[in-house]
């Protein structure tokens, strides 16, 4: 695990240079990319306490005829129709291995359509998990085991399977009609095209039905359990206990005992099937990873953001107000926060994106910690209101969970192409601080940090996350609430000398004077105003003064953010600069390249505006600078403009994260290394 919470471990913390933010620097684990779809255990439960079973290793060892091999890591992908429950299956496997103590990274990949026609290529949904007894930074490039529920899933995914990899297919779904839906004429199970893999055709449908027949439920309901039959097989293959999933089924179907029984039986049947048939000659065991001591849970980016904002509200003593309009992939933040009403959280599902942000502006004006959450298209709609928040100088946090664009684009796919929108996407001069989370767990700390800056500087702050972080999850070291510093908030009370735009000399913040406070009646708005009084004012010099003050206020935030330290070589041949969710794959690639002897540093930026004070100096320490981004080169553009550095980009715009190999190839190209080292 990289980026341990203790700063003394190494010089590779992403952005923790100086002492400034105790909570951020010391408490944030800054772990890198892991990914997972909606957590099955994600519903907020106040159960608390340590989970009953810390060890989830299967109690019954495989029979003597199978060999158990201890390996360091594995990458497994579940693929099927979007109605096949692949996200749940993957999430369950993830939860089980994480509980066992493996480090993990996941990559859920699902279609935008709720149910594309069954069995077709557009309907394929996948969930990839990388788990290890060692550090994990990415969901993995190539996969060791593929579970394919139908021909379309096989066709889409088999190219990523390693030679000699394990391929479990549902042979019941390879009839002629199934093949036709996947636009195949010959069954790949018969034409030797899969000869380089270890293929295990399993009659998932028939055997699941056989196991559930006595329950008296209809065939359709029985077939819906076949994913758990496959999951049971995987637990056997990787020597994992079925207990955590059994527990989950128990909770999930508590009110539907028949379905509970069906799912439990299917899971058990899959496990027993392997035991009885000795389908696999080898099973695998991946021991727990050495994580930093502490209490852990899995957390997705959206969950972490939600918890971060609840924490910020509690730490500032304010009500949290979320104004939001549902949009993929941000909606889960609304779902999460709407459960936390007993924390004094108001969630307002507005009539549109504009009402979502303007209601938040109103709530902030009246004294709430106000936030709004959206994705790129919604961000575009909020643009004018962002300008209003800048002009009225009120605290507000805007979360943009980026997805592929332009326009509706790729709603369920990840991209980093809203950076320039966040930095500049408003009319006139309207600067706003911009922060970006590096990992799902980091979303918690970014939410706190954005809230802190917004409240301290009386300013709107933009948080960038993306689909990859939002749905992704990682083992997250749970902080102690007592260790998180309070966020001080001061409301104006005294009418003597009160002016709505009288500024704090250090932060340039104006006072927060809440309606209801006697003697402080005042008017604010989007028209240009006189500094101090806030009265409408169109004088030329006043306007220039106000524009410069608003810019200076954003620039002043730099005094409040830590310097950055490059990870890896502190100087050398190549510096790789990253922001957002690419942190994980870039960390893995830099690590691998350094292991091969390359002199590379990695600078990850969590603060995009203002940039940390020492970025310019660090850029000069390396011969070359590379900026890999999931866009056409937006941070690259900023760095070149701001620091006059001849940096180059590596740009991927496919709705998918970087693969480690793609990055290493580019490093080698820039370092003049010939040949294929892999």
């Amino acid at each position: 695990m990289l980026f341990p919470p203790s700063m003394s471990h190494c010089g590779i913390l992403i952005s923790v240079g100086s002492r400034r933010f105790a909570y951020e620097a010391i408490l944030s684990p800054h772990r890198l990319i892991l990914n997972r779809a909606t957590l099955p255990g994600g519903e907020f439960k106040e159960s608390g306490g340590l989970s009953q079973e810390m060890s989830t290793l299967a109690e019954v060892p495989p029979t003597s005829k199978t060999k158990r091999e201890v390996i360091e890591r594995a990458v497994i992908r579940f693929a099927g129709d979007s109605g096949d429950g692949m996200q749940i299956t993957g999430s369950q496997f993830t939860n089980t291995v994480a509980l066992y103590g493996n480090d993990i990274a996941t990559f859920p990949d699902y279609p935008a359509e709720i149910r594309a026609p069954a069995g077709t290529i557009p309907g394929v949904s996948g969930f990839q998990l990388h788990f290890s007894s060692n550090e994990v930074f990415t969901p993995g490039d190539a996969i060791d085991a593929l579970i394919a529920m139908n021909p379309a899933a096989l066709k889409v995914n088999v190219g990523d399977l390693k030679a000699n990899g394990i391929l479990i297919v549902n042979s019941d779904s390879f009839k002629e009609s199934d093949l036709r839906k996947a636009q195949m004429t010959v069954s790949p199970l018969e034409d030797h095209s899969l000869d380089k893999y270890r293929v295990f055709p399993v009659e998932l449908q028939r055997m699941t039905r056989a196991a559930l027949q006595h329950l008296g439920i209809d065939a359709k309901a029985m077939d819906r359990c076949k994913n758990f039959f496959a999951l049971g097989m995987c637990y056997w293959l990787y020597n994992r206990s079925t207990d955590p999933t059994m527990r989950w089924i128990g909770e999930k179907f508590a009110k539907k005992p028949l379905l509970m029984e069906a799912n439990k039986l299917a899971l058990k049947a899959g496990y027993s099937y392997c035991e009885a048939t000795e389908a696999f000659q080898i099973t695998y065991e991946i021991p727990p990873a050495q994580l930093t001591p502490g209490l852990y849970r899995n957390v997705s980016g959206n969950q972490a953001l939600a918890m971060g904002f609840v924490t910020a509200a509690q730490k500032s003593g304010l009500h949290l107000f979320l104004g939001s309009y549902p949009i993929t992939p941000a909606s889960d933040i609304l779902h999460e926060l709407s459960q936390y009403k007993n924390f004094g959280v108001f969630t307002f599902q507005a009539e549109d994106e504009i009402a979502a942000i303007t209601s938040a502006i109103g709530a902030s004006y009246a004294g709430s910690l106000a936030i709004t959450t959206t994705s790129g298209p919604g961000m575009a709609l909020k643009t004018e209101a962002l300008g209003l928040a800048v002009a009225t100088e009120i605290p507000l946090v805007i979360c943009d969970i980026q997805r592929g664009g332009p326009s509706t684009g790729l709603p369920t796919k990840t991209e980093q192409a809203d950076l320039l929108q966040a930095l500049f996407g408003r009319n006139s001069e309207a600067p706003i601080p911009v922060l970006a989370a590096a990992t799902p767990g980091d979303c918690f700390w970014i939410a706190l940090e954005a809230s802190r800056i917004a409240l301290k500087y009386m300013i709107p702050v933009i948080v960038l996350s993306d689909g990859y972080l939002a749905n992704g999850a990682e083992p997250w070291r749970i902080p102690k609430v007592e260790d998180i510093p309070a966020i001080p908030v001061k409301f104006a009370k005294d009418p003597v000398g009160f002016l709505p735009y009288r500024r704090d000399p250090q932060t340039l913040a104006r006072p927060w004077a809440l309606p209801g406070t006697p003697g402080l009646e005042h008017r604010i708005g989007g028209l240009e105003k006189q500094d101090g009084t806030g009265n409408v004012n169109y004088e030329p010099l006043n306007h220039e003064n106000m524009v410069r003050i608003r810019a200076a206020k954003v620039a002043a935030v730099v005094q409040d953010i830590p310097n950055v330290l490059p990870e890896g070589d502190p100087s050398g041949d190549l510096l790789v600069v990253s922001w957002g969710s690419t942190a994980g794959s870039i960390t893995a690639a830099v690590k691998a390249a350094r292991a091969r002897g390359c002199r590379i540093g990695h600078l990850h930026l969590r603060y995009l505006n203002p940039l940390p004070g020492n970025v310019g100096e660090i850029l000069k320490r390396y011969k070359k600078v590379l900026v890999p981004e999931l866009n056409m080169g937006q941070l690259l553009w900023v760095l070149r403009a701001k620091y006059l550095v001849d940096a180059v980009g590596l740009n991927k715009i496919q709705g998918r994260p970087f693969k480690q190999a793609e990055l290493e190839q580019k490093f080698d190209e820039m370092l003049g290394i010939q040949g294929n080292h892999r």
Partner: protein
Amino acid sequence: MTTATLPQLTKKDFQTDQEVRWCPGCGDYAILSAVQSVFPELGIRRENFVVVSGIGCSSRFPYYMNTYGFHSIHGRAPAVATGVKIANPELEVWVAMGDSDALAIGGNHTIHMLRRNVGIKVLLFNNRIYGLTKGQYSPTSEFHKMTKSTPYGSPDRPFNPVSLAIGSEATFVARSVDVFQAHLKDTLKHAAAHKGSAFIEILQNCNIFNDGAWFSLTEKDVRSEHVLQLEHGKPLVFGKNREKGIRRKADGDIEVVQLGNGITENDLVVHDAHHPRPSYAFLLSHMEHRPGFPTPIGVFRAWDDLPRYEDVMKDQLQEVISKRGPGDLNKLLRAGDIWEVK
């Protein structure tokens, strides 16, 4: 807060030191004056008033009211005000909007605020024209109206703001006129007494770009023929000598009848503003479009049995707290499956 400790407020307490910059003769002056006169009489502390507006001539309103004020962006005042109300339901929030602000760019927010029944008072300044942008037709301009942007006549059919509000199931809907000061103040007081959303269409004259838009209702010699003043519990009578009335027809529709010849006020519709269903008020709101029918002013609908949105939100919060106890952050962070690494 108790009324016993309320300081005695006057109209002057609600005036600001800002120079009022509406065109001389604008109907907005009369509305401002009426509001400044009514606010001191409501028994509410000055610091608890918040006036929110969008963009347009009328939206300068907050700058001239010595209360808390928020001049937001075009069309969004209802959304900003909703946020204010949820964050602090104790505040007395009034919204000032023009016809384009409320019905064109901000139409969506207007209808959603009304259907939610947020406890906000809305003043819709309806002058049937775009004033601040200098004379384009608005969503309430008449069909075929010639304006700067419709030199050959407007192809749009207008909104009837009162119908729209009632269609959104607003719980309080009224109409008044800028120059009918006594009626306007009376209507404002009725609105102030309403707990839920209160929507008041104020017919307002723009003497620069649409002078005389409401002259048929405001000029002395004609107004009694064209205006029907609604009063709860009273029959629907109008005309110079109160000689005409509105009667129900057998099919449920209404008709204009001459009183006399055996027809008395007993045969007329008696105004019921407190009816729980909006259909009667809607029927009233539409009569002005029919030949021979008058334009009603006054309170169309005042049904206050629906809880306010901000109270529903707050109550839900309290309910969850009483059911689950106040939130425990440590528990929240430790929710779900957790494990310890030693």
